[in-house]
């Protein structure tokens, strides 16, 4: 069983990471968007692998069903010809970018390896949705409510910025 568990984990991890690399190297911006989608799906798979079923499907619903569709929709509305990402990248920034990225990568790898993590979740896989519901309605009541105001502001603000131009014209 553990062989397949390991295989599953590495497959999911590869699904999360390799498309991420492909985003960097794809020339067409729409391809990059679809690679991002694949990467997010891989992350959702990892959540499920870890037993976080509610979180995993929330990831699918919000990122694949919502955000990615809107991103691709936005690309379709705005595109005139195929946008080549390699044109946007500036050659002179290549060296600083690689150096910065390298430093960040090293630091993060160091943190991940050296830190003593303190896992709070139990090893056993249990359904999480009921617990999440209780927590949202008890300990995390205030963040839950504030999140609704954040969303309200996002909604009103988005419409407000988009409509402004139209009324002026």
């Amino acid at each position, binding site marked *: 069983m553990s*062989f*397949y568990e390991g295989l599953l984990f590495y497959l999911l991890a590869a699904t999360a990471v390799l498309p991420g690399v492909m985003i960097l190297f794809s020339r067409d911006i729409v391809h990059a968007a679809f690679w991002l989608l694949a990467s997010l799906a891989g992350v959702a798979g990892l959540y499920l692998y870890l*037993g976080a079923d*509610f979180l995993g499907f*929330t990831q*699918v619903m919000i990122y694949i069903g919502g955000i990615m569709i*809107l991103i691709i929709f936005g690309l379709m509305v705005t595109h005139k010809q195929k946008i080549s990402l390699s044109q946007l990248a500036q050659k002179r920034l290549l060296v600083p970018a690689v150096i910065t990225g390298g430093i960040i990568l090293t630091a993060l790898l160091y943190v991940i390896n050296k830190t003593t993590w303190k896992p709070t979740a139990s090893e056993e896989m249990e*359904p999480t949705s009921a617990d999440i519901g209780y927590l949202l309605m008890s300990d995390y009541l205030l963040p839950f409510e504030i999140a609704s105001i954040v969303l309200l502001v996002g909604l009103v603000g988005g419409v407000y910025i988009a409509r402004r131009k139209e009324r002026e014209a």
Partner: protein
Amino acid sequence: MPETTTGALIYQILELLPFLKELPEFLHIPMLMFVTGLIPVTVISLVGLVGVYMERKVSAFMQIRLGPMEYGPWGTLQTLADGIKLMGKEDIIPREADKPLFILAPIAAFVGVFLLFIAIPFDRDIIVVDLNVGIFYLAAVASIEVVGIIMAGWASNNKWSLLGAMREAAQVVAYEIPVGICLVTVVIVSGSFSMVDIVEEQKGLFLNWFIFRNPVMWVVFIAFIIASLAELKRAPFDLPEAESELVSGFHTEYSGMRFSIFFIAEYGAMFVASALIAILFLGGYYTGIPFLDNIDGILGILIRVGALFGKAFAFLFLQMWIRWTLPRIRLDQMFYLCYKVLVPFGFVAMIITAFWQMVLPGDGFMSLGWAPGLGK
């Protein structure tokens, strides 16, 4: 991996197919995955076949025609013949198309529908996995089919396809809201995300069905039917493939097998939506007549699976009926219906339901006491 109940289909397959156990051990899991995967694929294909035939016949009768009559009795083999023809067709990919995405798109659409079938309970134990978050899972993976369709529209490199895909994206994102509200309302009543739990809550006399649970559930029921039509891009919401404006929308450039995969996926999704209406509001695999539901053994299984299929096909018929009756609505009417009709009505119904559950938890009308002795 998410929890499975002990009665899950995968274990029954092991019982039914003993030769699986004789295979080398490392092949068990791949074989099981393959066999379990085969079942939804078969059901989708069969439902596709029947659905297409049904659509042809229903549309014909509504227009006082006969429809297909040549192959098989009453033309029943017509769809099969068409399928064989489509398989034999030349595989055409337009030169300017985005080739990888063009090939991937029908697969993505089919996978989306395939994933939906995993969580549909045909009987208490006939479900691929009874996910603890079943209904939430359905709402989540329903969007994968849309990704396939948008991919197709983009990859075809054709303005009709692109317009169709954009309409699809806008429409689906809009109608996810009323669908979500309806699902939440059902979860409030059932107290569980699990599909089997939702059906088991409706066991007993048909008055236990969720549609009768409180005085506003029928609003949710109707809202869900309308919103699911829009999610399925069925007429009168078939703007993404509006024949008179966009040739045939996102699949204009598709032909042969790829086209038929889109087609099967569409009918598969229609069936899932119909089955979902039955499961969420009309008792799922229960007939609503207690003594029929309590039969054990193979006969009982047949009755229950038959009940679900019967209800699902009734709604399939309703979808076709609507398609051949109503004209297509305009884009602005589509948004109006969503944001100004379904969403507010859905919200009000959800709030009323929540209060109803708080004041009269449990059996709904039954607990009002006017039908003593008829409860579970």
